[in-house]
């Protein structure tokens, strides 16, 4: 984000300010570093250690068992399935959310009348908790007492959460419904940072609305797209509450994503070792995806998109 909203200063800052600044900057980072260490790094190391043990989560004795948990997890056909479902939901919800968010963000960035009002209404899903959203959709989609049965609309009276492919579709729809407003907000901010002079120049060259969108808006939003995509991808890796309430991983195991798999193993089946192994896999996959997305943004992160503006 910061690369979009701030124009990087050209050239080096004066030497004097650099020296004076560096000492205090390190000191300022200490509280954040301590919090990160206590709530990020140390639990992570704890989980890594737990993944080499056998523990039921109840007793005091946690016994070291080498790679037993890892081989149990890696040989379980449930793991590739959970990975597949996770990536499927990740990819499809990205495909749905990104174009929609960009279009809505561009629309909301305009200055026409009533847009603020529409925008406020539109952001309401952001204010609701995932559990509340899931319970509401569950009630609406109930095949016997839901919207379809109530209104007598046959096409709405599908067994939405009872058939595998439909249930995956519903999860993607609800996730998108919930998070498109947030990503639209990012894009709205991104669009507003694009200098008007670029559009004016394009208009002088005779570019229409569509051409301006594809030639100016979209390229200028490159970093916003990367930021938003990173949030979506990493977010859908840890997607848990919504699915847990909506389908509990069902029907069968059709929506059993990795995070849910971890919870069920750890807290329902009392297998903390394998659950920790899955947690480690989640962390690794998340880190790898975030790195890939950063790479897509180009190695030279300081390059300005506003050259010539």
């Amino acid at each position, binding site marked *: 984000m910061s690369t979009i909203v701030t124009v990087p200063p050209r050239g080096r800052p004066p030497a004097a300010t650099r020296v004076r600044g560096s000492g205090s900057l390190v000191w300022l980072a200490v509280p954040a570093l301590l919090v990160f260490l206590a709530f990020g790094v140390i639990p992570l190391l704890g989980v890594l250690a737990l993944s080499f043990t056998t523990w*039921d989560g109840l*007793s*005091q004795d946690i016994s070291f068992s080498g790679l037993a948990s890892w081989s149990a997890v890696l040989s379980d056909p449930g793991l590739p399935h959970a990975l597949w479902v996770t990536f499927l939901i990740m990819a499809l919800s990205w495909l749905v959310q990104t174009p929609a968010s960009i279009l809505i963000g561009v629309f909301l960035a305009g200055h026409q009348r009533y847009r603020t009002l529409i925008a406020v209404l539109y952001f309401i899903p952001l204010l609701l908790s995932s559990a509340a959203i899931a319970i509401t959709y569950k009630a609406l989609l109930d095949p016997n007492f839901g919207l379809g049965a109530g209104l007598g609309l046959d096409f709405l009276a599908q*067994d939405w959460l*009872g058939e595998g492919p439909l249930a995956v579709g519903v999860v993607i729809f609800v996730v998108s419904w919930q998070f498109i407003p947030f990503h639209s907000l990012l894009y709205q901010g991104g669009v507003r940072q694009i200098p008007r002079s670029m559009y004016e120049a394009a208009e002088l060259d005779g570019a229409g609305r569509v051409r301006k969108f594809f030639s100016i808006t979209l390229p200028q939003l490159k970093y916003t797209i990367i930021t938003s995509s990173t949030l979506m991808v990493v977010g859908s890796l840890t997607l848990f509450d919504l699915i847990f309430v909506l389908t509990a991983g*069902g029907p069968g*195991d059709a929506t059993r994503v990795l995070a849910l798999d971890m919870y069920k193993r750890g807290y329902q089946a009392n297998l903390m070792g394998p659950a920790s192994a899955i947690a480690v896999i989640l962390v690794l996959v998340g880190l790898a995806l975030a790195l890939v997305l950063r790479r897509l943004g180009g190695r030279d992160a300081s390059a300005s998109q506003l050259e010539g503006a």
Partner: protein
Amino acid sequence: MGLPLGAALAACGTSGPGSTSTSGGGGGGATASYWYLSTEPQEGVRRRTMERFNQANPNGKIVGTTFQNDAFKTKIKTAIGAGEAPTIIWGWGGGGLRSYVQAGQVEDLTSWFDENAAVKDKLFPSSFGAATVDGKIYAIPCETMQPIVLYYDKRAFEKIGAEPPQSWGDIMDLVPKFNAKGIAPFSLGGQSRWTNMMWLEFLFDRMGGPEVFQAVFDAEKDAWSNPVAIDALTKMQDLIKADGFIKGFSSITADSNADQALLYTGKAAMMVHGGWTYGSMKQDGGDFVSSGNLGYMNFPPIDGGKGDPGNTVGNPGQYMSISAKATAEQKEIAKKFFSTEVVSDKSAEEWVGTGAVPVIKGSEKFFTGSEDADFLNFVVGIANNAKVFQQSWDQALSPTAAEVLLDNIAKLFQLSIGPQEFATNMNAVIGK
């Protein structure tokens, strides 16, 4: 949480009984903590039972905290693992209790029951099975016995002009008749998974007797591959394939009581469910129960089955254990609670008021005058006639095996795996 922990710390600091350092307001003394489930009408009975105890024992009170069913199951495990369990650990006995016992987290009550034979005599002997691990008693049976029964809507049977099923063959014959009238034959809250499991419990028992599941429980190799088990699983899938269950059953949860609503709104004709749903259908179903439209019976026999049709499945009771981590004072308070209010006539009477049969002997005297007398007598009849009261499988097995079981049952009902694959998957976790 804060209070019992504080009490425990204070007791450590001053060493020895009679510590008054924790005295809050009135009488003072140590307090014991107690977590219980929040659904009404049961919550009220639990709370009043505790309050009566506290009034009689101002020097050793119990502090209660309520939780929702599924939240409780996770919370209690986490708290026990973290060494912060409440003094009184409420649960369903069986495999869950066994895992606490193996972790050394609950008190052995065998000798206490020997010394307090009067307390033991007040309770139904069959309820102690799920409280016993390796011959020792680790919990006191409490509250009510909840057999699973077959409920039906008499209005639906009038519509198709048929009688309630007397055999599995009758069930299969009824399915197309109800479907033709636009009524689902059976309601089912399939997303909850244990709801599907109740069906298998009956099929296994009626076809092969209790031995079939006992072999699984005793960790016999490949016990799930028993031909009777395969046959039962096949019959189960036959009923699903014949549209025996309401459309969309796999997305219906039992926690929301939507499965019961299907029965009392006339959308489904029958339902296999726990005894506790009688009370909630009476509360939520308008005049469905009071006008006598609700019928109930034990699960019918299966043609050619070896099992005794009098047997039942379900929860023989609920259970209270004492945390091994509690202080001596807290343990005393809990034991006093067990020997007084938990088994008192007053609490038996209140449990009868919820439309359920208490595990306390001699509760029948409270049935007279109750508008639920018919149902209560029916439940007592089942409990008395059952040679075997099979505990719910997921409660009987260890949490690890139970989770795999529920997972595979969900897949079986989704028809995504067949009986053989189910047996193979389940054989892999036998004894775990």
